[in-house]
Each structure stands twice: as C-alpha cells, then as structure tokens.
C-alpha cells in the first residue's frame, strides 16, 4: 500500500474546545501515523488530558474534525460506541470496575461489545493477564491489588478489545514510585510490538526509550512537535525550555 492509501491512525484538524469561556484546545492539528508512539508533554492545565479525551469523544469538541483510521468520529450513539471499541484508553486513576474480579474486568467488553463467547474471552483474558504479569491475581477484586497491578490490569482490559490505537492519560502519575517501572515496562513492550500510542506522561525515560515523537503543549496549543532527542537536547520555544527546566530539576 502507498502512503496515500493508508490514512493516519489519528487525524485532528482545526480542533477547538472550550470549557465555558476557557479556550482549552486551540486550532489543534495533529496526525499520528500507524505504529507511531507519541508522547504528549506540557504543564498542568495545558490541555493534554482534553486532547487525549477528545480523540475518543469522551470530551466532545466545539469545532474541527477528528478521524480515527480515516473515519470521522460519529455523534454519541451505537456507531461511536463501535469506534471507541477500537480505541483503547488507560486512565490515571485506573477505573477498573470495582464490583468485578480482574479477569471479569478484562472479559466484560469482549463479551458485551464484541459478542465473544465467554469461554474464549476468558482464555484470551488470562493470556493478556499473563502478558502483563498478573495472571495470579485474576480472581481478586481491584481494591485488593496494588496500584501498579491495577494499572497493568487496566492495560490488559484495553488490549482485550484488540484496539488499533491506545491512549494513555498519565498512566503512572497515581502510582507509588516503586510501581512506575512495572507499568512503563508493559507500555514499552507494547510500543516495540508496533502499537500506535498517544501517551500523556512526564516520564522522560519512557519518552526517550519508547517514543518516536514528542509533542509539547502549552495553553491549549501544540507548541513543539519533534523527536525526543531534539526536544530534550534542543527545545526551540521558551515555554518548552521553561517546562524542561522545571521537571528536570525535580
């Protein structure tokens, strides 16, 4: 296939978003080709989460277009639900279903949305839990797991839908330091396997090791768009220099 015949996995064009008077996304243009791993950086309140959540329409936008794999986001309804099934999302606060065991968390959407037979869904779920290293926790409830284990379960839950693209919104920010690495390891493996990923994170190690591209946001705008090497060694804008100065001294 030629480049022209494969649409980017994510395409945002002229995207604006307001919260009341607050202009949170300002004319955002972004194309993420298949297989690319993009890290989104920026100070608090710069609109990173909103950008991430706009991509699967958890946050509806006010103007512009967003396409996933060439398909524009439909309005809320069955069609949108189908499209969301192909877009995995991992939240800062895990959001595992509190009343279901870990394996049931992973199985739920394949059974309900993809209509996979339960036995088959359970088998794939166990394989995924094995892959993220928590197969032995399958029958526990989320509250009985450590944060790192919960986040790995949440990643398995998203992967169970065989998504085309994965969105991560600060997946390690709520974790105790000793648990950050186990989650980043799972994400790094996923990146190596060719998953298209958009990751909001302040983990510089991950950005350097796994990302192809770094996007720096400030006040709702994409201010810089470059490779990790370029961005960390020679940021162009003052805002990025400022930001890097702050996080690197931490």
């Amino acid at each position, binding site marked *: 296939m030629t480049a022209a015949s494969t649409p980017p996995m994510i395409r945002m064009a002229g995207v604006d978003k307001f919260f009341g008077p607050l202009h949170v996304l300002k004319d955002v243009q972004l194309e993420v080709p298949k297989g690319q791993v993009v890290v989104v950086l920026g100070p608090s309140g710069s609109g990173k989460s909103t950008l991430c959540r706009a991509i699967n329409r958890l946050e509806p936008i006010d103007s512009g277009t967003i396409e996933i794999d060439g398909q524009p986001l439909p309005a809320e309804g069955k069609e949108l639900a189908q499209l969301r099934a192909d877009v995995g999302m991992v939240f800062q606060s895990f959001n595992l279903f509190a009343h279901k065991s870990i394996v049931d968390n992973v199985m739920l959407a394949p059974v309900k949305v993809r209509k996979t037979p339960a036995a088959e869904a359970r088998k794939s779920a166990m394989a995924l839990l094995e892959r993220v290293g928590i197969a032995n926790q399958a029958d526990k409830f989320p*509250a009985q797991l450590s944060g790192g284990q919960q986040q790995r379960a949440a990643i398995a839950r998203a992967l169970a839908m065989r998504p085309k693209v994965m969105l991560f919104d600060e997946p390690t920010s709520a974790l105790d330091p000793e648990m950050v690495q186990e989650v980043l390891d799972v994400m790094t493996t996923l990146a190596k396997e060719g998953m298209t990923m958009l990751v909001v994170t302040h983990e510089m190690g991950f950005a350097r090791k796994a990302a192809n591209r770094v996007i720096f946001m400030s006040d709702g705008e994409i201010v810089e768009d470059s490779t990790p090497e370029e961005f960390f060694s020679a940021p162009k804008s003052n805002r990025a220099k400022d930001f890097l100065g702050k996080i690197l001294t931490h």
Partner: protein
Amino acid sequence: MGVLTNNLTLFRDGFATTLQLFLYSAVLSLLLGTFLAMLRVSPVPVFRAIGTTYVTVVRNSPLTLVFGFFVFAYPYLEIIKFDFFTSAIVALTLYTSAFICEVVRSGINTVPVGQAEASRALGLTFPQMLGSVVLPQALRSVVPPLVSTLIALLKNTTIAAGFSVSEAGAIRDSLSEQGANMLLGLTWIAFGFVVLVIPLTLLQRVLEKRWSVAR
C-alpha cells in the same frame, strides 16, 4: 391466645394475601423503579422529563389517593378491567416505584464517574454501561434504604383492606364484628408483621456482608 386460635383461618388467609400483595408489588416496583431511575439519568432529555414528572407526581400523592384512582376512577376509562387484588398490586407498585427510583438514583450518583468513562471508552453502549457496570454498583451501595422502602411497602399493603382486599389489615374488621378482644387481636397482627419483616432484615444483612467483601 384465644383470639388467634379461634381465628386461625382468618389470620392465615389474611397474611397469605398480604404476603402475595407484598411479593408481587416488591418485584414489580424494583423493576419499574430501576427503569425510572434509568430514565432519570438518561442522556435523552425527554426520558429524563418523563422520569422526573412521574416521581414528582406519584411521590407527592397520598397512597390512598393512588388506590382510589385505580379502584374507583380508572374503571371509567374502560381499558382493562382489574379485580381488586390486581388493582391493589398496581397501586402499590406505581406508588412504591417512585421511591425505589429515587433510592436507585442516589445509588447511581455514588458510582464514580470514572466507572462510566471506562465503560464508554471500551465501547459499551449506554444501556450496557448501566446494566453491567453502573447499576450493579449502585444497587450494592443502597441496600439499607432499598430494604427500608420494601418494609414501608409491606406496611402499606394494609391500605388495600380499605379497597376490598382481605389482607392482614382487614383482620381487624372481622375481629371487631365478632366482638373479640381487640387488644390481643391487634397485638397478634402486629406480631405477624414483625415476623414478615425479619426475613427482609436478614436479607439486608447478608447482602451488605457479601457486597462489602467484593469492593
């Protein structure tokens, strides 16, 4: 003791009718009440309006009025004819479901918004999200007020006596016709209700215990 032993059939039939009224109305109100709660949290404004109007009207009407409407006024509409027993179930269900609705809705509000977001992000539709994720957690968090509502329903069944249904609340009339000892008679009736409430209280304990582990 004499009041009870002399009127064993009266008591037995009365409480059997009460129990039936209660069980039918309880199941139906739980279903209708949950459905109304779903309407009230629906993203569709018309559905929300229907749910809100229902709750506002029904919850503010005295139960005797709801009964009166079904037993005396509704037949004039000549749609489907109900016997007194069925009318009583309909009236109790319509009334109780407004309360169940509000209990369930308050339960829905206790479920963190992240649970709904995770469901939506996985591609669950709104009904799937409610049915598989939000409602199960909502119900777990409102077991005590739900059981209280059911206990109120159990006691409200006695209103049916005033509308030609011979349930436990009607035992008193028969006893007073006989000139039986009313103090004893009423005490036995009260005792009967206590006996009926005990299983509900036990059910509440079991559910609370089971579901506290699961969280």
